[in-house]
């Protein structure tokens, strides 16, 4: 029976003092050990680091500062970092199978010497079961070799491997402004080589197919899209049977945008439970939210459902017309639909262009009863004056089109007062290459679109949710106190703004995150 077992069972054990014997080689007095030799004699007889390598080599890419793990992986690691330590130990693993590594640390070497020194403490059994521990130095020689992607990049910096072509077939660019802010916020375009603006869309170029796929996934999660991918053979190595391709992903964003008036095709209206054929689009994320303004019923269409039977918008926000509200009669109380509040009401409105000139007054049913006041302004679609040429509308026999559909409240007058004073916040933008071939008209349209987009952000707090707004240091708030009574111009509250850090991009990426 082992002594420890005896002790564990509670028996009395007399104390055992370990005596000392003489080392059989050198005669120095020492406590007995399995080899019965003192440590020095043992170490001089047995070298446990016998089979261990003293030199090894690493392949290093100076461009991207990564080390090669054969056959093909490159691992990014800094000098004297944890990753480099694990990498070196992994390279040594097959050679150190017979010893146990207790400790490993770097010995400092000059950064330009191309040598990395590692000190290991190894343990191994020697002779009759005595375990020896010894320290061992290994020197790694660093050989420089550009990794594949860096060499490809050096040879032709414009060389891309994967491209994502985002397109939306509408006449404005609001979706792309919105997407730009989303991309900036989530850093989805961190791996792009180039971003190029094209007519009706944006192209993103990547060095790696998986980066492109990740980007496409991000976009599919933000807007409803339909995508297809193709590849083109660039080169072929018949000896090792490798093929280099250029991959292209064609991503089409659905043409329905916020505040669009849609006449649903009969089939779609039926699947959605006979939703009145005229609906407004209230929100576009990875699914489209539709609201019937006369019954306050809402429905959602996700990407698959939409692209199964696609339809176009009847009128879009460019065709909004301003109305002045003459009278409001509430029909129902305020209810909450999908996070936003609506109230059914009858309103007497007149077009601002008609007001004062003639007596054209329309009585319309609207879902904005809680926002409208007599004397206020609203923007809406003028169906009375519009010339509608849509197939879908013709399919409905006996459809009674209302004269106007009000969409949102207008702050135009207040904006006139504040024109040119700037905003207290600003947005960042991606560095796109702009396609300037179409001339001045487009630039004006683009500037208008951007201004609309900024207004949209101001008016809708839920849109701001996914964006980062930065403090505009150049803005001076005016001294004149703001308006007397009634509605104020909606603006972004100060606590939502992020203070922008004035440091260069390189330092930013080193620090990691921006301070708030």
């Amino acid at each position, binding site marked *: 029976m082992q*002594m420890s077992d005896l002790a564990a069972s509670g028996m009395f054990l*007399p*104390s*055992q*003092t*370990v*005596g000392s*014997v*003489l*080392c*059989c*080689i*050198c*005669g120095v007095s020492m406590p*007995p050990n399995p*080899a*019965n*030799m003192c440590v020095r004699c043992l170490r001089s007889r047995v070298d446990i680091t016998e089979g261990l390598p003293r030199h090894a080599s690493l392949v290093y890419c100076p461009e991207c500062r990564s080390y090669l793990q054969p056959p093909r992986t490159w691992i990014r690691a800094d000098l004297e970092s944890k990753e480099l330590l694990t990498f070196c130990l992994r390279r040594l693993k097959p050679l150190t199978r017979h010893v146990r590594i207790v400790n490993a640390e770097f010995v400092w070497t000059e950064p330009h010497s191309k040598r990395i020194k590692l000190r290991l403490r190894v343990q191994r059994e020697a*002779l*009759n079961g005595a375990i020896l521990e010894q320290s061992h130095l290994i020197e790694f020689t660093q050989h420089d070799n550009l990794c594949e992607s860096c060499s490809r990049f050096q040879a032709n910096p414009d060389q891309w491997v994967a491209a994502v072509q985002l397109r939306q077939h509408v006449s404005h660019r609001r979706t792309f402004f919105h997407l730009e802010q989303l991309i900036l916020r989530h850093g989805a375009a961190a791996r792009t080589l180039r971003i190029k603006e094209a007519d009706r869309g944006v192209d993103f170029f990547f060095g790696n197919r998986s980066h492109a796929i990740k980007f496409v996934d991000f976009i599919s999660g933000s807007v409803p899209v339909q995508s297809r991918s193709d590849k083109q053979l660039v080169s072929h190595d018949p000896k090792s049977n490798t093929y280099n391709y250029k991959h292209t992903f064609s991503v089409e964003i659905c043409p329905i945008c916020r505040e669009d008036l849609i006449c649903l095709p009969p089939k779609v209206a039926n699947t959605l439970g006979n939703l009145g054929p005229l609906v407004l689009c209230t929100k576009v994320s990875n699914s489209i939210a539709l609201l019937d303004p006369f019954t306050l019923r809402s429905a959602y269409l996700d990407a698959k459902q939409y692209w199964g039977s696609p339809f176009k918008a009847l009128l879009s926000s460019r065709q909004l017309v301003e109305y002045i509200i003459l009278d409001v009669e509430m029909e129902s109380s305020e209810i909450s639909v999908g996070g936003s509040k609506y109230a059914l009401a009858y309103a007497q409105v007149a077009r601002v262009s008609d007001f004062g000139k003639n007596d054209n007054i329309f009585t319309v049913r609207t879902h904005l009863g809680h926002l409208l006041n007599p004397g206020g302004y609203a923007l809406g679609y003028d169906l009375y004056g519009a010339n509608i040429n849509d197939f879908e509308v013709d399919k409905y026999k006996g459809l009674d089109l209302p004269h106007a559909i009000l969409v949102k409240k207008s702050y135009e007058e207040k904006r006139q007062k504040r024109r040119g004073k700037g905003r207290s916040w600003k947005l960042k933008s991606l560095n796109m290459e702009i396609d300037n071939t179409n001339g001045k008209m487009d630039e004006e349209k683009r500037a208008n679109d951007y201004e609309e987009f900024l207004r949209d952000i101001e008016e809708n707090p839920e849109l701001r949710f996914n964006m980062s707004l930065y403090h505009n240091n150049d803005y001076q708030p005016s001294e004149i106190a703001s308006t007397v009574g009634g509605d104020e111009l909606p603006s972004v509250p100060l606590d939502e703004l992020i203070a922008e850090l004035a440091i260069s991009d390189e330092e930013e990426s080193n620090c990691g995150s921006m301070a708030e």
Partner: protein
Amino acid sequence: MCAGNKNGLLVPHSTTDQELQHLRNSLPDQVIVQRIEEKLSALGNCIACNDHVALTHPDLDRETEDLIADILGVEVFRQTVAGNILVGSYCTFSNKGGLVHPHTSIEDLDELSTLLQVPLVAGTVNRGSEVIAAGMTVNDWTAFCGLDTTATELSVIESVFKLREAQPNMIVDEMRKSLIDSYV
């Protein structure tokens, strides 16, 4: 396989009659050669003795123990050495001194020394081997050790078994200078 002292020699049951006769013929008449029926037949591993005291394996039969006491004329003690039951292999002693397994604790050493009435030391033989009696054999004036025994081990053996001074004429001198003991 066998254990003995000046009084007798004990051999295991597997000894043939011819061998027994040969042994009796070769040894002097005072030495009784006796074959014993014992389950543990490797008597050399189980019994360690000198002319006065014997240490035996704790599981030895009672009859065997009586036989040992009778034939060898010794006092028998059942003991273990450093936790090993094969006392005959892990320690060896003569009438002058003894060498035991190196891992023996100090208390055990004292206890054994009191039992055996000889000075004991813990040491090794054959370049650090712990199996003492398998590496050497000793009597009052000579010892034989294995080829690998290092000089340190030899000096330990010489000193504990008092072999340096063990020339026949030196024994007489030894009795005169009795006060000073020499140690390594």
